[in-house]
Structure formats: structure tokens, C-alpha cells
């Protein structure tokens, strides 16, 4: 059993390993020019330089702060809208069409408008991120509440529960897994958009490091940026995933109906 699990995890490493070997081979023989694709070793050295000079940490801090604020703003407003639409039919009738219209707009399409309104400073980035984070959160919260099995609601109707007890006993526990998925989507969306925002408007931040490096043709720095972004995103999702298992626990695996 244990062995099988480890084996399955190792299987996922095979292709990255092959790609790495190929990358090393192609760059060490200079089949691909180093200006376009530096060798893995060069990337590692560059990363180490950026790390030890504190440049990476400073820019990461800026990016993460923006993600934090944008995520909070988007997640809270998305949660509130999703909850309101899920619990009160009139709110859903009034707002859902508008929301569905809004969510068809790619978040990047808001960039010109947001820059006109907010300039290119922090508020632009935070609002932009929160726009993107808002949508999955609202959607998943609504879905979670709408997905509460009618059969469970019938049980508590027979027990003459008041609305608060219905909420506490059935709706919240039943909607929680979906809401938690919403949070994860919301965070990864926020992390993607912060990079987008930084690529568009200058300042500090990991995206901006990459923009400057591109202008100076420092392909290694650009790639370090890409890898750091990937690892950070992966780690953030993993942490939320662990929290989810920790708090939502085992007993939900067998949700009926």
C-alpha cells in the first residue's frame, strides 16, 4: 500500500527528469544559444546571486503583499456575494445575471480601464487582483450553498429547525468543501494576476524583475522568475490543500446524494 503510493508519486517525476536531462544536454553542447536558453547551472547561480543580494526577497515581498491584499479583498467580497445569492432567492434573481455578465469579461480586459481610474500604483494592482479572485470565490460559494442536498434540508424541516440552526447544522458543513475549493482557485488566480499586473505596470515585484531582465536580455533572470513563480504558486496551493484536509477532515468523503 505505502509502496504503491510512493511509486505513484515517483512516476510523476520521470518526465520532469527527462526534460531536465535534455535541457542540460542541449545547453551544454550549445545546440540552443545560451542567450535564449541558459544552462541549468547558470540559472541556479543566478538564483543564488539574486537570493543572497536580497533582491529576490525584496521583490517577492512586494508581490506577496499585493497578492495578500488583492486575495483578501476578492475572497471576502466574493464570499459575501456568493452567500447572499445562495441564501436569498431575491438577491440571486437581482444579481446573478449581472454577475454572469461580469464574469465573462477576461480580467485582463479591465487593465486599461483600471489604469485610467487608479493609475499604475498599488491600488490598481490590488483592485485588479481582487477582480480576478472575486469570481471563483463567488461562484464556488454559490455552488456550495445551492448544492446542499434537498434531502438533508427535509430532515431538518421535520425537526422544525430555525434558520440559524439549519445554517449551522446543514448548510455550512455541506457548502464548506466547495467554499474551500473556491479559496484555492481564488489564491492561485490572485498569484497569476499579480505577475500580470507587474508585467504591465512598473514598480517593484517579481514580475517587474522579469520585465527589466528582458530589456537587458538577461534570459537567466527571466527564467529564475518563472521558476520562482511556479514554486511559490505550487507551495501556496499545497498549504491551502493541507489546511483543507486538516479542517474539513475525513468524514466528508462519503457525502450522500
Amino acid at each position, binding site marked *: 500500500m505505502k509502496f504503491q503510493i510512493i511509486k505513484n508519486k515517483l512516476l510523476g517525476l520521470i518526465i520532469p527528469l527527462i526534460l531536465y536531462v535534455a535541457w542540460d544536454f542541449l545547453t551544454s553542447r550549445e545546440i540552443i544559444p545560451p542567450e535564449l536558453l541558459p544552462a541549468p547551472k547558470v540559472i541556479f547561480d543566478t538564483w543564488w546571486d539574486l537570493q543572497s543580494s536580497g533582491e529576490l526577497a525584496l521583490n517577492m515581498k512586494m508581490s506577496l503583499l499585493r497578492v495578500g491584499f488583492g486575495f483578501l479583498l476578492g475572497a471576502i467580497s466574493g464570499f459575501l456575494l456568493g452567500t447572499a445569492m445562495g441564501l436569498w432567492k431575491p438577491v440571486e434573481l437581482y444579481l446573478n445575471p449581472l454577475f454572469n455578465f461580469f464574469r465573462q469579461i477576461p480580467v485582463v480586459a479591465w487593465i486599461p480601464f483600471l489604469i485610467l481610474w487608479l493609475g499604475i500604483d498599488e491600488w490598481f494592482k490590488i483592485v485588479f487582483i481582487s477582480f480576478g479572485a472575486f469570481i471563483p470565490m463567488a461562484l464556488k460559494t454559490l455552488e456550495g450553498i445551492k448544492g446542499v442536498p434537498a*434531502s438533508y434540508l427535509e430532515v431538518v424541516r*421535520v*425537526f422544525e429547525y430555525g434558520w440559524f440552526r439549519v445554517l449551522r447544522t446543514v448548510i455550512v458543513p455541506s457548502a464548506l468543501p466547495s467554499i474551500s475549493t473556491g479559496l484555492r482557485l481564488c489564491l492561485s488566480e490572485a498569484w497569476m494576476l499579480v505577475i500580470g499586473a507587474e508585467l504591465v505596470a512598473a514598480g517593484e515585484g517579481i514580475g517587474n524583475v522579469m520585465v527589466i531582465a528582458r530589456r537587458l536580455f538577461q534570459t537567466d533572470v527571466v527564467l529564475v522568475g518563472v521558476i520562482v513563480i511556479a514554486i511559490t504558486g505550487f507551495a501556496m496551493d499545497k498549504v491551502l490543500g493541507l489546511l483543507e484536509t486538516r479542517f474539513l477532515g475525513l468524514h466528508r468523503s462519503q457525502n*450522500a446524494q
Partner: protein
Amino acid sequence: MERLGTLEVKNLNKKYRSQNDDLLVLDDINLTVQPGEFISIIGSSGCGKTTFLRLVVGLEKGYEGEILLDGQRLNGPSLKRGVVFQDHRLLPWLSIEKNVGMGLKNPKSGESRKTIQEHLELVGLKGFEKHYPHQLSGGMSQRAAIARALVNRPEILLLDEPLGALDALTRMYMHQELERIWMKEDITMIMITHDVDEAIVLSDKIVVMSSRPGTIKKIIPVPLARPRDRAGYDFANIKEEVLAEFQLHTDHPFTYSI
């Protein structure tokens, strides 16, 4: 004090509205259930028996005629009427103990704890307090559901094919259990089923319904001593009487009359 748990159904009609015309689901149902009686309602699929039960529970609205519990007209679901569904409907995020305590006003009080314990013992689930529904077998889950329905001492218990999802052996065992619980609690029970044996083993009266529209075709009393012998002669006679209502006459190739 007069015993509670009398259910009177008078001239009950139920229609479902569709776009073109109304579909009559229940047509002129008249039934009186005495306190402490065990009644089975038997009929093929689509005869409206579940609709009837849901009306009595109060989960279905809009009917003509009268449904009275102890002389009072029903108005929505109530703690006075417990219900056990075919799917146990235990909440997967609550332990068995908490599931069983769902019907109590204040499940954490000492008195409630005692009631929960008593009911877990009643259905034979002592020791499973801290388990979760997915750790229980189908029969155990259904027993927990019965305990949950009884915990607030309803006047009448309605069972919608409660054993329909269980295998044949578990079901026979549950018949004994259900009979024992019914006798101990001394409560009115109305059970929907499509299992003729089950109906005869458990009921004082069997209500046979026919389909489209759902009407009561016949009410067959079961005057047999309990516990009932499934292989007995009287049992077989009643079974034949019930099956005859469904045009399912049994042939007797090896019997002859003298």
C-alpha cells in the same frame, strides 16, 4: 389522558399541476389509524404511496380533503411526526451520537445525553456513539435513522420504504428489530413498502393501493399473533389475499381439495 397518535385522513385528493392538465395522484383516500397501530401501505411504483406519506409528514403541500392528527389539521412538518426515509439521510459530518440528537432542542444537556443513549441502546447501536455514518453498514445506518426519528418522542412514526435498500437477510433481521422497537415505544407507525412479506410480518392492517390515480383498493387486517411465523398457514393465506390484489395468483400444483 387520551392516547395520542390517531391519524385520520378524509377524502384526500392530491393533484400535480402540469402545463396542459392536472395529474391526479391521490384520489379520495380515506383512512383512520388508531394509536399504537402498525399500518403498512403497499402498492406498485407510482401509486402515490410516497406522495401520501410526504403529505402526512408535511413535506408536500397543497391537497384537498383533510389530514388530522389527534383531531388537528396538519400544517407543515412537525416534531410530532417522525420520519425515516429510504436513504438514511444521516449527516455525514456528524457522529452517530450527534445525528441521533438532531431532533432535540438542546442536544448537549444532560437529559438529552441520556435520551440519546437510551435510543442508541433501543436500536442496538450502543458503542457506536463516536462513529461516523460512512463507518456503518446499511442496516446500522437505518437503525441510527430510526433512533433519530424517535428521539424527540413523536406521536407517530412514518417510514418510507425504510428497509428497501438492505439485503434480504439484513432486512429480515430488521423486521424483528422494528417490531421490537414498535412494541417497546408503543407508537403509531405507518410504513410504505412493496415487500408483501414485510408488510404481513409487521402490520396490524395492510392498505393496498392501486395506481393512476392512487386509490385505496383494499384494507386487509392481519389478525395473527406476534411474533409471526413466515411459514405458517395463516401467513400464506394472507399473502395470497394481498397478492391477489395485484393479479398475482399463486399456482398450487401439488395441492388439491378433498
